[in-house]
């Protein structure tokens, strides 16, 4: 019996259209009076325009939407010692919730929500190309341009988009080359390099001086030899 009551509650709530909040298009003929009609549709819906052209049709479909609608239905059941009988439901534009409980202490609740999810992968060039091509098609469908102008428009659009893609490619390659150059350039610690230079120059000077001292001792009073020692010291330190 308990299970039947809860099951009925679930069925009642799941039958509510608000649990699937995908809104249809709205038409308002009053917005602009005799000038025409105004239509609005949710962002996740696409339109396909079909116009008769002599014996054929001109078909222009809108680009794929940039968002998708995600519906989530959460159903929670739990048992408690609650003895009250209560049924309620609240609805909003994008969400709906309901609850049911009974004297036997079983309670259920449901929540439905809809979230707009942005679809990834649309670069600026992709978006531009889509809009150009769609606009060109609609211009033809509305009779503003003829077949030849439409074809010319398509060719120009493709040419422009190709040029933009080529520019993007060149820029990307330049960035890549720059990044690789930065990576390849090894930045050395100048202080460490200087430490070695100072240490070895000092050691060299000391060694040269030691050799000079020995030379002078050996040269003793021989002026020529002493002079040669000085020349050798000079060469050693260079």
């Amino acid at each position, binding site marked *: 019996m308990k299970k039947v009551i809860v099951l009925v509650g679930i069925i009642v709530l799941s039958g509510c259209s608000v649990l699937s909040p995908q809104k249809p298009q709205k038409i308002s003929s009053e917005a602009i009076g005799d000038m025409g009609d105004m239509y609005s549709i949710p962002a996740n819906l696409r339109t396909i325009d079909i116009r008769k052209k002599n014996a054929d049709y001109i078909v222009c479909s809108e680009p794929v939407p940039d968002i998708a609608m995600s519906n989530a239905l959460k159903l929670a059941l739990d048992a408690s010692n609650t003895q009250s009988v209560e049924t309620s439901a609240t609805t909003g534009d994008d969400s709906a919730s309901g609850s049911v409980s009974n004297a036997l202490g079983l309670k259920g609740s449901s929540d439905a929500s809809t979230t707009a999810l942005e679809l990834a992968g649309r670069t600026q060039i992709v978006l531009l190309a889509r809009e150009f091509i769609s606009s060109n098609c609609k211009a033809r469908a509305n009779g503003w341009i003829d077949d030849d102008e439409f074809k010319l428009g398509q060719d120009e659009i493709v040419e422009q988009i190709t040029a933009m893609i080529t520019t993007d490619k060149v820029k990307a390659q330049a960035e890549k080359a720059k990044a690789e150059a930065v990576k390849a350039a090894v930045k*050395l610690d100048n202080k460490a390099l200087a430490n070695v230079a100072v240490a070895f120059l000092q050691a060299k000077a000391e060694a040269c001086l030691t050799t000079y001292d020995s030379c002078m001792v050996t040269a003793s009073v021989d002026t020529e030899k002493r002079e040669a020692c000085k020349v050798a010291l000079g060469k050693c330190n260079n």
Partner: protein
Amino acid sequence: MSTFRNAVNSLDDKSAYIMVGDTLILATNLNVVDDMVEVTLSTPISGGISRIFVHIDNLVLASNS
């Protein structure tokens, strides 16, 4: 007397670049003990090696001046 040894000794507690094969490695300390040079690396290499021991006859240091 060893000019090379004297030079390396004077680098105690100073950073210096040593050549290991074709690779320059930055060392933070060179400690000369007899013919052994204990080299402390500034950045561990090969997943965790932070100190290497080089024979003084094989040690090569680098400078730019």
